[in-house]
């Protein structure tokens, strides 16, 4: 894997408009039954503008940044050997329907461990006003030839 990925600048992804039905669909898919995810009146009573996306929903927006990373022609990352090692989200606030989100990728570390490589990619996800909503951090393990 190319260690110079760490200094590279990546362009922001195209804005992603979070739809109400998309929030409900994603909530059903992760077996999230809390009314905040489905019922607009419940979400508004709790102080949110619209239905609240489940905690892992930002991965849908983050995915576009990981596609940028894997597409780097000199990155040396073979997608067929990539395993998801770790994932975390740090939220400033929950994502709600109506948010228009843009993600910007930064590679924070590239390491070799045994025959494998590990890359940590941090995606800053901001709303339409440019305010940070959530930071999504993925560590991908790229298995070596012998692994």
């Amino acid at each position, binding site marked *: 894997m190319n260690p110079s990925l760490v200094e590279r600048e990546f362009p922001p992804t195209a804005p992603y408009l979070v739809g109400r039905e998309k929030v409900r669909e994603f909530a059903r*898919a992760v077996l999230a039954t*809390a009314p*905040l995810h489905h019922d607009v009146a419940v979400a508004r009573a709790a102080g949110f503008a619209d239905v609240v996306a489940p905690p892992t929903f930002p991965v849908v927006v983050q995915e576009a940044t990981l596609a940028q990373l894997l597409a780097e022609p000199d990155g040396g990352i073979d997608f067929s050997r990539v395993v998801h*090692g770790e994932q975390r989200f740090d*939220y400033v606030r929950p994502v709600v329907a109506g948010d228009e989100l843009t993600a910007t990728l930064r590679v924070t570390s590239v390491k070799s461990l045994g025959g494998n490589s590990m890359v940590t990619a941090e995606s800053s996800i901001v709303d339409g006003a440019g305010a940070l909503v959530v930071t999504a951090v993925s560590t991908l393990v790229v298995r070596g030839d012998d692994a």
Partner: protein
Amino acid sequence: MALPTIEVGQLIAEREYPLDRGALVRYAGASGDLNPIHYRDDVAASVGLPGVLAHGMLTMGLAVQPVVDWLDGHGWVSGYGVRFTRPVVVDAAEGATVTVRATVGVIDDAGARIDLSVSAAGGTVLGKAQVRVSAL
């Protein structure tokens, strides 16, 4: 609103989530992750996997739900991280069951850290699964 009253070590939720291939297809569609190792036995076998696997992000996504339900609008999830330690194999006929136990790890001024123990087929599938919760 304040978080519910808790103490360190307290078990706040324990749930079982049955997964079948339909659940994997539904997550593939909702998330956009169409990697065929999550729905095709032949592809999974060709890359040396023990079977069709649940998406790691599906396991991560459902494992936090007992905490969201427990919060019941009195707080929110302000941070969440996991390590993917072992895959969840979802048999075509039998499916799989993911068991989640959520206990209080730390209580501090900002809220609390809830630690998740997540297992399937007798093995731990998520490591260091920690949920940061804060008052709303």
